């Protein structure tokens, strides 16, 4: 038996847009699933305003997020288009959507309808708040979930304003949870023979990541203190300003030995033998003072130098990398790889940052043009003859 990717042969009908959904189905594609995006010129995907847009309307983010998938163009508001979508869903293992609550039902593609046609279907909703509950109709964006989901008020120190991450975050968190739920549902289908409806809430995915603090608040009747860059185990710990504009180095002193090594590296070994800094409890008590002492030293040096000196002394230290440091690094990690992308020659794309020793990942394929695979998929999945395709096209269902 030749090893194949884990989800080889799994047919995914992908109704998702923006980021969380497409990110999830890209993971499925990397695992070898046949992901077919249902798109339409009437409703172009709008992931985020990007500085790169190709002539075919594809943004940079689309190219990265939707590579390795196929695209069928179907006008879901057209009766014949909807009929084709129903037939595709009947042939699919998986339908994924991240519309607002009720949209799929209004299109006649609700779970109950599709389940009746295909009892083995796994149907995944990925809306912001889920399709039930008082917030089901709320719309949400990444920043909403960062705020509502608790990230902003658990990040940063006591008395800081809410702090966000200036990047998508919840989309990835939601997409990863969905991907996990999907593979699990596929496995369980092998035992039960039945599909499933996963009405995922991205909000809940976000809250899950701070759930220990929610639990603590539920029992203790107060939110735990925000620690900022400090630790309850290690002291000192912080991100220290270095020489240069907005340059920083993270340092984490995990034991007394490292503390002494730090003070030695700072040229201040007598600090390391002071009783009031001798152990972690004392250092916690005098953290502010210690931070000032450390920063007086780090601010004289480039962060590369701080990092180098501390690491050679066995101290956990990492300078703050910027995006360009990561992307341009000669020893760039396995998280990114170059993929063929005809529109730009090749592009850097995110990989599955994990490897299975037996099952390979699927090779990268370029993001599709809108409707690029309509004919191919309708033949592959449904065996629809060219004649019928021509007719459907003429009726305007495949746009």
């Amino acid at each position, binding site marked *: 038996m030749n090893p194949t990717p884990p989800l080889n042969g799994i047919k995914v009908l992908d109704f998702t847009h923006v980021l969380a959904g497409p990110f999830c189905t890209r993971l499925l594609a990397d695992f070898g699933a046949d992901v077919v995006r249902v798109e339409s010129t009437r409703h172009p995907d709008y992931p985020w305003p990007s500085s790169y847009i190709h002539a075919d309307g594809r943004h940079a983010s689309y190219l990265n997020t939707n590579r390795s998938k196929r695209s069928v163009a179907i006008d879901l508001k057209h009766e014949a288009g909807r009929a084709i979508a129903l037939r595709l869903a009947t042939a699919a293992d998986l339908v994924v959507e991240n519309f607002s609550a009720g949209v799929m039902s209004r299109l006649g593609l609700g779970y109950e309808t599709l389940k009746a046609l295909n009892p083995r279907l796994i149907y995944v909703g990925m809306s912001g708040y889920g399709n039930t509950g008082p917030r089901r109709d709320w719309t949400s964006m990444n920043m909403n979930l960062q705020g509502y989901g608790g990230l902003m008020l658990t990040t940063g120190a006591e008395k800081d304003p809410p702090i966000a991450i200036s990047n998508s975050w919840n989309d990835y968190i939601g997409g990863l*949870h969905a991907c996990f739920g999907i593979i699990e549902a596929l496995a369980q289908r092998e035992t039960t023979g039945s599909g499933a409806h996963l009405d995922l809430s991205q909000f809940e995915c976000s809250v899950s990541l701070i759930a220990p603090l929610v639990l603590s608040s539920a029992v203790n009747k107060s939110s735990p203190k925000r620690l900022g860059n400090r630790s309850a185990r290690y002291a000192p710990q912080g991100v220290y300003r270095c020489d240069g504009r907005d340059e920083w180095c993270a340092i984490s002193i995990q034991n007394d030995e490292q503390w002494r090594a730090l003070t030695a590296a700072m040229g201040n070994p007598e600090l390391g033998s002071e009783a009031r800094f001798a152990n972690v409890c004392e250092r916690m008590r005098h953290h502010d003072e210690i931070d000032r002492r450390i920063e007086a030293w780090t601010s004289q040096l480039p962060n590369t130098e701080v990092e180098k000196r501390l690491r050679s002394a066995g101290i956990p230290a990492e300078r703050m990398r910027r995006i360009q440091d990561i992307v341009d690094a000669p020893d760039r990690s396995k998280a990114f790889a170059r993929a063929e992308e005809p529109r730009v020659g090749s592009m850097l794309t995110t990989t599955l940052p994990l490897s299975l020793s037996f099952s390979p990942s699927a090779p990268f394929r370029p993001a599709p043009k809108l409707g690029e695979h309509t004919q191919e998929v309708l033949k592959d999945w449904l065996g629809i003859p060219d004649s019928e395709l021509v007719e459907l096209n003429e009726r305007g269902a495949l746009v």
Partner: protein
Amino acid sequence: MARIIDFGSLAVAYATRLLAESGHDVIRIDLSGGDALRRMGPFLGDNPHLEHGAYHQFLNAGKRSLSLNVESPAGRRIFTELLQKSDALVASRPLPLAEEELRNIRPQLVFTKVEEEEAELCAYARSGLLSLTGQPDGQPTVLGSHMIYLATGIYVAVGTSAALYVLNQTGQGQTVCVSMKDCLETFIEQAMVEYAFSGTKTERRGSRGTITAISGALPCKDGHWVISQINRPGRWEKFMDWVQDPELMADPSLALDENQNKKKDFIMDRIFVWARKFTKTDLVEEAQRRHFPASPVSSPLDLVEDPQLIARGFLKEMNHPKFGRILFPQGAIASVRGNSLSPAPTLGQHNREILAELGYSEPDHRTLTEIGAI
């Protein structure tokens, strides 16, 4: 349902928590002195105790606990026997036996080998994410709640689940390698794409959005709220209908993307002046009525009473043997599946039943306790 051994730190614990939410039999191998997870605050009842850690109570819910001294010969043997009856081992701790031995003992094993970073702050700095988090003029800051371990844990769960699916389909075991370092870098995807395609260097912006001009957290009467006003045709006018700010309305050109982006700080400042007269609930409910993505900014304590989390069963009442009736966060997967998890086990709570499953007798159990193997 697979039997899965949980032998790791935070990322592994969240991965196996997800597997438990999904219905698998997860056995956490606990060190008899209590591992770092059990020792991680905050502590329920403010009691620093191995059974009171909030991370332990959340992450180990739905699992069984076997306390095991894997360095003792008898402990290593139990580990081996458990392995023979398990489908997966998810581990970031040093194993009591060499990797090739695992395969000899259990050829069909899914072995997920996780490299978790010891120094959270350093890992975050190294990944590039630190440069995206914090006030532009202040110290950049790590995400709260040790979230980056849990985020890594989802990848661990995904990889393990995929390998279990292959095992299920083909009978083939394999090793899944996941490094926290690689996982963290994937989360800069959006900034990476912008930079790779057009050289845009994303920087941290406090609590404001990067891509969308009108996006971010703002103070209001009773806290903070978030508005995220995607600029589609006609949206600006609808937004002004609501806000009714004369200075903003005086410049109709702000309806255009590029102008919004140029003046985004001015716009946000005006919205701030307007919004601070209202409460979170007023603002968010009115915004949602008008189809603007808005939300409150919640503290963990706020979330305890969230009607959506309660209505969907994400927060579910549990009668906890130690803490009484509490609202317990079931988790995103358990919530979707309608599952309720058992409370986190006390240290070694399932020693008896797991040893029995491995064929040990009651006297064996006593002996193994006496010699400190469990």
